[in-house]
């Protein structure tokens, strides 16, 4: 089988196509937009564990009301009917409550993982799910370092369920339901920059109460939910070993290698093929 003009052009076409597709493989979203992200500061020294946020969340999102209460030693999990939960921890400074929900990362692993852009980082900061795009592959769940997205396993039309930072309410100028309904002012809404400053101020003004760390400032490259705590975050069941750079960074190297392979491989393979074919012709002539 020889390489005639036609197959040569076919090959050229194929190489062009591969180049075009190779370029598609861009890396993670850029960091520049991180400045104006909206965020929520959760101050666990103020939280009284009243579950008002859970009730408000359930009401806003049409989910069943919580029936259990935070209890030390029991970790209540997020699931497809609960987008936020309050848990209680016995620590060196007594009982501490911790709220859990989506962290709304600056560079979300779930959005980088999503092959249909169903998981989406809004310009204002919230990470939301768009059902008309999602194909239900659950790669977002595999990738999320905080294990936040949940899946409706028992539905023929399943959804990915997670906190949306009440993106619809934000659009109408309202606060997220949990922030608005917190009677203890444990939740504060604002821009990420403001809230980091506010968190620093609180730590600075009252070093006895606060543990000197803002969880979420750097975790996973920075998140829009920021946490203050009276004790080390280890004591509150947080993953403190989580990397400080963003998660999409981890697959960036691989994705960057794709265009190079797409250029180098076909050229090299074609060269090899031509080289070995020439050998064959010579021996045929010798015969």
């Amino acid at each position, binding site marked *: *089988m020889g*390489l*005639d003009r036609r*197959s040569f052009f*076919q*090959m050229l076409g194929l190489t062009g196509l591969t180049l075009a*597709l190779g370029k*598609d*493989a861009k890396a993670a*979203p850029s960091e520049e937009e991180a400045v104006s992200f909206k965020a929520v500061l959760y101050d666990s020294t103020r939280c009284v564990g009243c579950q008002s946020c859970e009730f408000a969340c359930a009401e806003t999102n049409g989910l069943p009301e919580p029936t259990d209460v935070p209890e030390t030693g029991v970790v209540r*999990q*997020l699931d*497809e009917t609960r987008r936020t939960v309050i848990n209680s921890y016995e620590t060196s400074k007594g009982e501490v409550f911790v709220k859990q929900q989506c962290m709304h990362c600056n560079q979300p*692993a779930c*959005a*980088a*993982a999503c*092959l*249909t*852009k*169903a998981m989406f980082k809004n310009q204002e900061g919230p990470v939301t799910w768009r*059902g*008309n*795009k*999602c*194909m*239900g*592959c659950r*790669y977002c*769940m*595999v990738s999320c*370092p905080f*294990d936040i997205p*949940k*899946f*409706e*396993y*028992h*539905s*023929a*039309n*399943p959804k990915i369920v997670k906190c949306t930072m009440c993106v619809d309410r934000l659009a109408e100028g309202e606060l997220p339901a949990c922030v608005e309904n917190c009677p203890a002012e444990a939740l504060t809404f604002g821009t990420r920059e403001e809230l980091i400053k506010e968190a620093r101020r609180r730590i600075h003004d009252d070093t006895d109460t606060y543990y000197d760390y803002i969880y979420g400032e750097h975790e996973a490259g920075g998140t829009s939910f920021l946490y203050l705590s009276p004790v080390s975050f280890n004591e509150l069941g947080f*993953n403190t070993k*989580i990397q400080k750079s963003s*998660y999409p960074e*981890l697959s960036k*190297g*691989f*994705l960057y290698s*794709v265009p190079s*392979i*797409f250029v180098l*491989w*076909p050229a090299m*393979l*074609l060269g*090899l*093929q031509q080289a*070995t*074919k020439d050998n064959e012709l010579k021996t045929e002539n010798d015969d």
Partner: protein
Amino acid sequence: MINTDTMIYRDNDGKNIWQFLKQELKPKGKWLTPFNLISLPIMLLGLVLIVIRFWKGIGSITNLTQDVPWGLWIGFDVVTGVAFAGGAYVITFMVYILNMKKYHSIVRVTVLNGFLAYVFYAGALLLDLGRPWNVVNPIIGNSFGTSSVLFLVAWHFLLYMIAQLIEFSPAIAEWIGHKRAHKILSAMTIGAVIFGITLSTLHQSGLGALFLMAKDKIHPLWYNEFIPIMFFVSSIFAGLSMVIFEGSISNKVFSDQISEKNQKAHHSIVISLCKICAMAMFAYFFLQVLIFVHEQHWSYLTTSWGLWFLTEMFVFVLLPMLLFVYSYKTNSFFMAKVAAVITMLGIIINRLNVTVIGFKWDAAVPYYPSWMEIAVTLAVIFTEIWIFRWIINRMPVLRESPQWAKK
């Protein structure tokens, strides 16, 4: 089996093509074989389970949890199945790029195997999709998640299936006896092969790269930044072991189709493949040692996970590697088969360790596949074998091409 040469290899230039196809669709040979008696009930059961799955949701037949969203269907069917299909790109590389004529007699059956593996195991992916009606979104429309490794893998599956179909298509043209189509399709082979090898390099490694973001979830002994390279290197010997394994079965089951010359050549092909496997496995084992030293996970070795890791490395990589060396030193066909089977088990273990067993290894509720997930997996495999058998019995895959096609 009757000699079907005269029936199939006529040049029917489209006249009685429908009649011909209708006749070909009918089953050939005996029906009540042990294989049929075992596989048919499982395939029917699988069909019932699939109906239930689409009716009541994925949770109705799988044990997947919120912590472990990918189970047997992804870890075995897709990730392991694709590794086993790696033989196609290795053999086409040897035959069409390096012009190694010796392996020409196995190239078609290997490509067919690879193609069917992609169709069925990537097809099994549809069962695992919660919202399969949106499956076209990454391909058509404006929802391209180009930062996703899965986007790359999805495109590559699709394009590679097309490339493999083109590589295999001359056999289809020979079957229906279309000379013109045969000429055109044959001319496209080299292009498809080059394209296919490039795609394979990227998506074999891409399947590993899928798990790069699951850094905190996979057991440290199996998570490292080199997963993509390791998946690629291991796909070489995974694919070739599959070629050896499948070849030794096909040579018995379809012996009536294979010419005496090719049957004899098969032995020497297998022995040569053993050398490639041994080399690739040596490189793989060496890389594993380097990675292990680099990551400094010595403390894990004394745990049960460490024991499991060492078992994988020594019993399922080093041992079959030595067996491959032994089989080509002693020219032992039997040992080659043993080595191939152990290697394949090792690949299954390795892929499951990364994707399922070592994934969320510290989860409160560990995941075990339900019997229904296993039944569906078996049904998928059996269906693939049925289609494989159907094609082998009709198209010139194992047997020689008709005279007109050889020019």
